[in-house]
């Protein structure tokens, strides 16, 4: 059954309302005036500062081994814990798996749709990170698990220094027109609200705590 209007009728009305388009306004091709972060700055430091300012917990390590050790340390510090660790390309993934198993941390079945709802930790990689805004970008698709960075109370993201881009403009430029994932999310702080009397509460629906481990040699 046809609901709503036909595409033709819908667009005919819009075109009619644009009979007088007015003096042409050109679409600016150069948006560099909006660049806040140049490529020259120390991206790792800027990224970590910005992430820290909004309540995420960035830490810097020198190599994969140290990154895995840090993850194990964070998870075990929380006591008996469970974690979801998607089979995506996470830096130091094999080392992390070994480390967590060694400490008796329960690794959830990634093929269980509800696993992330029950896990204490979600451990993921990122597709990139943005220094300007201290953001992590996580993509959907393939072996990725959308809820691993969302439904868990603690998210640990592993970021390689070379994944950090300076500016939102750089992020936009690297999004592929043809091969864009079904979902890309920029995570720029722990889940939060100030709906009740403007008082900040963290961990509304998404993670209350976001750890970021930056691997920079």
């Amino acid at each position, binding site marked *: 059954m046809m609901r709503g209007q036909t595409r033709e009728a819908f667009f005919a009305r819009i075109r009619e309302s644009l009979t007088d388009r007015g003096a042409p306004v050109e679409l600016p091709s150069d948006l560099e005036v909006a660049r806040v972060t140049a490529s020259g700055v120390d991206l790792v430091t800027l990224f970590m500062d910005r992430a820290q300012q909004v309540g995420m917990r960035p830490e810097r390590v020198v190599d994969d081994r140290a990154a895995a050790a840090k993850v194990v340390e964070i998870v075990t510090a929380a006591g008996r814990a469970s974690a979801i660790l998607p089979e995506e390309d996470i830096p130091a993934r094999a080392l992390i798996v070994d480390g967590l198993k060694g400490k008796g941390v329960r690794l959830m079945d990634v093929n269980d749709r509800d696993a992330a709802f029950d896990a204490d930790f979600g451990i993921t990689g990122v597709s990139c990170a943005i220094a300007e805004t201290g953001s992590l970008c996580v993509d959907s698709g393939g072996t990725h698990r959308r809820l691993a960075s969302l439904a868990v109370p603690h998210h640990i993201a592993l970021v390689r220094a070379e994944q950090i881009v300076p500016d939102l403009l750089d992020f936009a430029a690297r999004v592929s027109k043809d091969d864009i994932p*079904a979902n890309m999310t920029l995570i720029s702080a722990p889940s939060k609200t100030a709906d009740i*009397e403007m008082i900040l509460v963290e961990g509304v629906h998404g993670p209350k705590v976001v750890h970021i481990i930056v691997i920079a040699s």
Partner: protein
Amino acid sequence: MSGQTTQSHEFHPDFKKAAAAALADVRIGATFDRATRLNFDKRRAIMPELGRPMAIRELAARIKDHTLQNLDRYLEQLVENVRKHGGQVHFAETGQQANEIITGIARDVGASLIVKSKSMVSEEIELNQEIEKTGIEVVETDLGEYILQLAGEKPSHIVTPVIHKTKEDIAALFRDKLGIEYTVDPEALTAAARKVLRAKFKAADMGIIGANFAVAETGTICIVTNEGNGRFCSSRPRVVVCLMGIEKVVPRMKDLGIFLKLLGKSATGQRLTCYTSLITGPKRPGDFDGPEEFHLVLLDRGRSRILAGEYRSVLRCIRCGACLNACPVYRRIGGHAYESVYPGPIGKLITPLLASLEEYPDLPTASSLCGACLDACPVRIDIPTYLLHMRNELVEQGRMPWTWRIGFKFWRIGMSSAFLYRCGLKFGRMFMWLLSKDGWLKWLPMDGSGWTDHRDFPLPAKKPFRARWADLQKQLDAEEGR
């Protein structure tokens, strides 16, 4: 502006009455003043981080103007690209059509529970009420909107919808509706809502989202939320429906970058809202999770009419709420007095434009034209000038009281000659002396009472400034021996 009334039921907005009632409630003024100032200050603190914020705001305005001017082209491109990625697109001229489309999808897919993230457009068309009529449960998942849904109330701010409620209000509401122990601790209240809503996210078979932006060149819908509910609504359910006003489209991904730089900062003083999701169609073959169906509902509902007229650039609005937070009128009377989905300065324009000026004749006059809204607007919508245009329309429609019409006729004559202007001043001074008492002007007749009801005026100086200036000049000349 021709009338396309939006409310199905009998509804006669009376701004003056509603504003008077709001002013009489001191709690409203105090609550809104505090909340709006907080976000106002946060916005002002963070904007300089953009380096050249004004240049970026003007760039954003230009991108929007270009897009609106070619809206047909960019919408066509958006439709093509959403379809290319496997999404379905629906077209609604009216709110009723959009409701039919969405309830239709819900029935087609056999939905029994719908989770919804915040969408102002859905408020416009009263989508929830229509869904509920079909017997399907729909749950708002933004904490503020959830509180409103439980209370059966409407938002009072487009970004922070529940700022009119105190934590005591919410504590009582949650005790009554969720059966939890009375607590005014925001952490505990949020945790209670989280628990209920988590179960809903898990069980929902359909999600409804709005759109902050839509990128034509990729077919991507962008939504931002701080709580993560938008991510849940667009990731977990089997079917996702996005309801979007046609003005939300931007041409390129890089344009989106510009608007993201502005939106969070303007709305809540955040560099970027916690979660910015770019959604492009349903899950891809081989993806483990994500919706199997993605529907985009494009809604016109009067927007093409705005596009055709002199108010086109009102459609630049990105709904950040910065003008609400800056507005001295909004701060005093709050959001509900406007009796519209969109309150505050931008609401004074959008509301009559989407409905009709006949229905909301008082809104354009509810402004001192101080310009704080223009100053705050990230896309530089010249709200004060547009309000003047609307007032002009009201005059042309003969909707101004006769006292004003005569008064302003005299004003015009007086202002057109220096002699008459001086005569007018003299006459005005005499008039004020006649009505004064103990050196104060305490009462003015007719519409003048609006000025004197709440304050007394000191009488004008016995010797007017012009005369003193002339004397001073003489004195100076004498001293300098000229």
